[in-house]
């Protein structure tokens, strides 16, 4: 008897997906939670883990086929444990016409210490310290989970069936990836010129074209960028920052910082702290439009754009105002690692109140970032370059960086935006201000 593997829910409002790649050929013995197939949806690419152990006997849907959430996508024979020789059917793992999906962090795999229960339906004995209710035991075993992973909401912190169900639903829902920052050349501050494409190509040029269908993810990104521009009244204000104070601090303390805290002293910590000062002073930059209201947030979750394994992602560091420099750097480093390994979770990418993006790492001198909805502000940092500047009547060479704040003019007015940026500038040029909160 084969067990049906169904497409799990992958996120709110997502009802269908496309098979991108079969990760395991038919005839392989799979373990519980082993990833079977990569699916692509409107928002994200997600890998479907196996709910049971056994022999993968059928790929019900082929590559590029569409599936609905809840539909059967594979079949596994739990009673079989010997692999059968690979059938002659085309190996499903070459996605030739589909482009590699951009920046798609997969849901976190089951933790390394998952016990691999036998394929018998009887629940394996749960951890002896915790008395678990029968349905909870069954769900944990079916999904290769440990009680310690689940937050219990029942009386006395007891884990309820619904707690495990919620965990599973969130685990399988994919993060929405909003790589919102676009860097345009510094020469013009106009929006990037609209691509002029010839609607139809003449046969003469036909052979010199390559038509690549946009992946669902890219389509979504494209749509969201345009939506952001249609919804908010985006404006960008600029300033420049003399980075010598920060760089001086770094040079003096980077070794002792690393020694004391076990993490490198980067620039981001400074930028983040300066931004917090700015957000506290100008709360409208840390708000959101909801219907007819403006929601002022009294928490500070900073999204920081990082280059991940599959592209740009914006993980969120929560409650930055309550983190020390070291804690911030550590958290950010942890998130960057996760981004590299495609292990960011939906929670890691959600609920940011403001975003920082550093185009300077790519060489950008100045740019106009696009907002990351529903946030109303995004700070673009750029390349730090030595430039001649006037200081007390003399020309000096200073390490300068242009900064850009794009903001939603519906609720952030010009004065606030400019003042926010000035505050950030002041804090970075004179870090003592952050210590003294002035």
């Amino acid at each position, binding site marked *: 008897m084969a067990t049906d593997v169904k497409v799990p829910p992958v996120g709110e409002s997502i009802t269908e997906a496309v098979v991108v790649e079969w990760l395991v050929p038919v005839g392989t013995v799979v373990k519980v939670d082993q990833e079977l197939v990569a699916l692509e949806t409107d928002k994200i690419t997600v890998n479907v883990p196996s709910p049971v152990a056994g022999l993968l006997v059928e790929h019900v849907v082929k590559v590029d086929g569409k599936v609905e959430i809840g539909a059967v996508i594979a079949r596994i024979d739990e009673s079989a444990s010997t692999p059968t020789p690979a059938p002659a059917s085309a190996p499903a793992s070459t996605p030739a016409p589909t482009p590699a999906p951009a920046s798609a962090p997969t849901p976190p795999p089951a933790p390394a210490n998952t016990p691999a229960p036998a394929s018998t339906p009887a629940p394996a004995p749960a951890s002896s310290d915790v008395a678990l209710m029968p349905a909870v035991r069954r769900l944990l075993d079916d999904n290769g989970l440990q009680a310690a992973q689940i937050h219990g909401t*029942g009386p006395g912190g007891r884990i309820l069936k619904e707690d495990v169900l919620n965990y599973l639903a969130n685990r399988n829902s994919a993060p929405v990836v909003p790589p919102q920052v676009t860097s345009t050349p510094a020469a013009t501050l106009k929006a990037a010129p609209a691509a002029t494409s010839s609607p139809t190509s003449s046969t003469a040029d036909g052979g010199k074209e390559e038509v690549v269908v946009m992946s669902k993810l890219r389509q979504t990104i494209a749509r969201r960028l345009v939506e952001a521009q249609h919804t908010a009244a985006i404006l960008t204000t600029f300033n420049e920052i003399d980075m010598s104070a920060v760089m001086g601090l770094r040079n003096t303390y980077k070794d002792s910082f690393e020694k004391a805290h076990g993490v490198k002293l980067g620039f981001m910590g400074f930028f983040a702290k300066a931004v917090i000062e700015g957000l506290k002073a100008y709360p409208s930059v840390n708000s959101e439009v909801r219907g007819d209201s403006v929601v002022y947030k009294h928490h500070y979750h900073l999204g920081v754009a990082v280059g991940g394994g599959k592209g740009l992602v914006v993980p969120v560091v929560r409650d930055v105002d309550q983190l020390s420099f070291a804690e911030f750097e550590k958290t950010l480093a942890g998130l960057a690692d996760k981004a590299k390994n495609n292990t960011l979770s939906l929670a890691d990418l959600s609920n940011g109140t403001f975003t920082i993006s550093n185009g300077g790492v790519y060489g950008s001198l100045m740019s106009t970032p696009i907002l990351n909805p529903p946030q109303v502000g995004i700070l673009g940092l750029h390349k730090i370059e030595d430039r001649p500047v006037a200081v007390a009547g003399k020309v000096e060479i200073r390490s300068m960086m242009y900064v850009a704040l794009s903001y939603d003019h519906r609720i952030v007015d010009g004065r606030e935006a400019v003042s926010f940026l000035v505050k950030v500038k002041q804090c970075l040029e004179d870090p003592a201000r952050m210590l003294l909160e002035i």
Partner: protein
Amino acid sequence: MGSMQRFDVVVIGSGPGGYVCAIRCAQLGLKTACVEKDKTLGGTCLNVGCIPSKALLESSERYAATRHTLAEHGINVGEVGLDLAKMQERRVKIVAQLTGGVALLFQKNKITRLSGLGRIAKGADGYHQVVVTHDDGSEETVEAAAVVIATGSVPTSLRGITIDNERVVDSTGALELSQVPKHLVLIGAGVIGLELGSVWSRLGAKVTVLEYLDRILPGVDGEVASEAHRILAKQGLEFILGARVEAAEVKGEEVVVRWRSKDDQTHEVTGDRVLVCVGRRPFSDGLGLDAVGVALDNRGRVQIDGEFQTNVAGIFAIGDVTRGAMLAHKAEDEGMAVAEILAGGHGHVNYDAIASIVYTHPEVAGVGKTEEELVQAGVPFVKGRFKYGPNGRALALGEGDGFVKMLAHKETDRVLGCHIIGAQAGDLIAEVALAIEFGASSEDIARSCHAHPTLSEIVREAALDCARRAIHK
């Protein structure tokens, strides 16, 4: 002026709410007194409610079973005689045993018993005063840091009906009848009415039930109430629904009850006894609440906050005299909660997990939300049902009537309610009340081993049926 006795708590009323509260207070080290106006402790429940009715229900059920069902077991009995006086004696003895038991518990816990009608009065130095008027008219005043009102409820009547406790009786009178009525006319098809009606019906009375609503047992899950109606009618009770009773006229040894049907026609039914069971009202007469400023709501219930405190600091109230289901165990739980609050801790009652039971045969029991309540609240749910019929124990007991219905949340599978009609329903419901307390899902109950052969397996199959996985269906 002699010094008054001073207590940490004075509880007024020694029913299940009051006496349990007093005992718990004493256990927690509070100096406690309990005021009771009746000769015996235990309030309505022990004296003229739960206990005596259960005694008569048991006796009358045995009488009916002996006459009607022993034959199918191959047991031949001849003429079955009824000694009603002896049956009543048994009831009286059981009540005396329990009320005496409460008195002993009071002694053991060193609770001061104050006999007489209690009235709260304004005190001094932050203490309240309770004035107890003894039977001989003398008064005794004590001081109390806290007062707990546990004065319970009394039967109500209808406009136009006078309860004389001779021909027209209330529930108390119905318990004490010394003769089986020829024709008992029962006004009100609620829990108490149907239980008492069942008693006399089994003992040989013709029973006609007049109910104002279009259904019996208001508050009970509709599907279960319908089944109860069908079964009780089969047992011989005559039901007239949608009847508005207007008068009950005593004519010698008979009573003519006049009622109006929905189409505005008047009708009459004549019996030799009429039992009026149309509900109970909170009782706070003579408590002096006006004088101390304790507020009542528009239904005469003492108003309390989430910690059972009235609008007057230091005066609390529990049980039937307050809001909520008029159930002895609800009063008991509230009594315990108040005691714990008074002793400085926390007290909490989970009203979602309080079962209510009707001791007809078969029994009816329910805990949590009814199906109607869930539909009205728009909560998505699944329903699991299993009949008594296929259960081995039920058949061996000769109790094939009835079913268990379990309601679970559609998405989380959490048990939201369970409603049973069938033998031992009142005991079977306890498992589900516990499940609700623990936030269990129907799957949790389904996966717990239930001994075979027992009636509890019916509960388990209903739980399995929530996921359409019943084995024996």
